[in-house]
């Protein structure tokens, strides 16, 4: 590697960040949209939520991964706002430490957004991974943010108190663990999920097999779902800015170019060595 290419390699990450920053600031491009107007996953999620009873009681398994939370954060917040707009009562539980940290941050954010505190219940952190999930189906002890009524219902009825379960996933204890440990132990409670695209291969069979009633699994599904919402006064609970597709497109093009360059260089090297062998 000569000095010129070494300097280019060193400068490339900074150039990429500068390029992404410029693309983030650039005006919207009309033809470039993140949302898919005909997202069946988004429609399925809306249908599943529509099928819930009035004032649904929903258990939120909040266990995203810090590394992928940026991808699902806006959709997760939109889903929480949607549930609150449907007069839902939400109980948050986490089975991982990072999930607990993010759930605490989101509960604090909902508090700042003046969400009705009587509709929020902090069940907290449940230790024991899969064993903790199984324990959750037998006994739930709660309550910090609720005025008492919701807490009493949950403590009295346990997991049977809930009309639906929403899993905000991203790490090992995501929708798969809920399907495996919780669903066989409870009745026909719909299980919904919001997961980053990296979990798509894991979640897809559960959606196809209808073990998950609905799931938002890609950024496009999430954007389509957010676009379909009419939250009225509660729109203050969703993020004010949507993710921008232009920097994502630019980043993907750069990634494809880097991969293509690496593949092309190997092929060229292979052809050269084959050519020199045939000459020799």
């Amino acid at each position: 590697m000569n000095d010129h290419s070494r300097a280019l390699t060193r400068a490339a990450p900074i150039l990429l960040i500068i390029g992404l920053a410029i693309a983030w600031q650039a005006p919207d491009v009309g033809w470039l949209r993140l949302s898919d107007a005909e997202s069946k996953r988004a429609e399925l999620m809306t249908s599943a939520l529509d099928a819930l009873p009035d004032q649904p009681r929903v258990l939120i398994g909040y266990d995203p991964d810090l590394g992928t939370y940026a991808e699902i954060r806006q959709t997760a917040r939109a889903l929480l706002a949607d549930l609150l707009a449907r007069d839902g009562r939400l109980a948050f539980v986490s089975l991982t430490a990072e999930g607990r940290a993010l759930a605490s941050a989101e509960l604090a954010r909902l508090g700042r957004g003046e969400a009705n505190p009587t509709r929020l219940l902090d069940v907290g952190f449940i230790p024991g991974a899969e064993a903790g999930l199984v324990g959750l189906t037998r006994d739930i002890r709660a309550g910090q943010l609720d005025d008492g009524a919701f807490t009493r219902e949950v403590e009295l009825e346990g997991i049977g108190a809930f009309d639906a379960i929403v899993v905000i996933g991203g790490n090992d204890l995501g929708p798969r663990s809920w399907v495996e440990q919780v669903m066989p132990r409870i009745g026909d409670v719909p299980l919904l999920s919001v997961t980053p695209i990296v979990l798509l291969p894991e979640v897809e069979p559960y959606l196809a097999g209808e073990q998950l009633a609905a799931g938002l699994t890609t950024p496009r599904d999430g954007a389509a779902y957010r676009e379909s919402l009419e939250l009225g006064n509660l729109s203050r609970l969703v993020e004010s800015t949507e993710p921008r597709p232009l920097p994502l497109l630019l980043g993907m093009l750069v990634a494809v170019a880097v991969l293509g360059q690496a593949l092309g260089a190997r092929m060229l090297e292979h052809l050269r060595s084959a050519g020199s062998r045939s000459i020799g």
Partner: protein
Amino acid sequence: MSDFFGTTTADTIATWIAAIVTLIVLGALIGERRVFGWSQHLLAGLATGFLALIALTEVIGPRLVQPLAADPTGRPELWAGVALVATAAGAPWLPRQLSMIPASIAIGALAAFALGGAVIGTLLPQIDASIVRQGGSLGTTVAGASAAVVTALVLIGFLHGRPRGRLVTTAAATGRWLLIGGLGGWLGFLIVSRLILLVDRIAFLLGDWLGLGR
């Protein structure tokens, strides 16, 4: 905008700290490794501290100490839990046969739940869902059959160390290539996720920290 921080002085300080640490991490891209190393230590320390805090305030306190204090004789299983925790904590000074008991119970219980759940919750329902049924559309039938074939080939790909025939060897090689293809697709998804994270951090620096709107 991440909206994690509000408008109080403490939130402003938190935003500045987050921005500075983000810049330090991005600085590693241009070779500034020493401060980046410190930021890794900071992350590890914060994570450990947070974990300890959760363990004390949400597990040991409310689920162990408080029930025992309220009814010392009514919950014998909690005393067994105390004994196991004490054994685990004293592992460096105890005989190996004794110190391995809590770890064995923990690993055994986790494996039992994970394996049992995988069979009851995933394997059987997924086999049931992928069985080719009469009356389904052609696409569903083809997809189900393809999934079954790919699953079988990848499972055969994990066979090793036994004498094989030509057919099994070919199937195993095909299964390994399918596995590599699947991993390639998964890495593609990972690139999308990480790219979104990078763009989100840039948006945080420009929007939340510098206040540059769009």
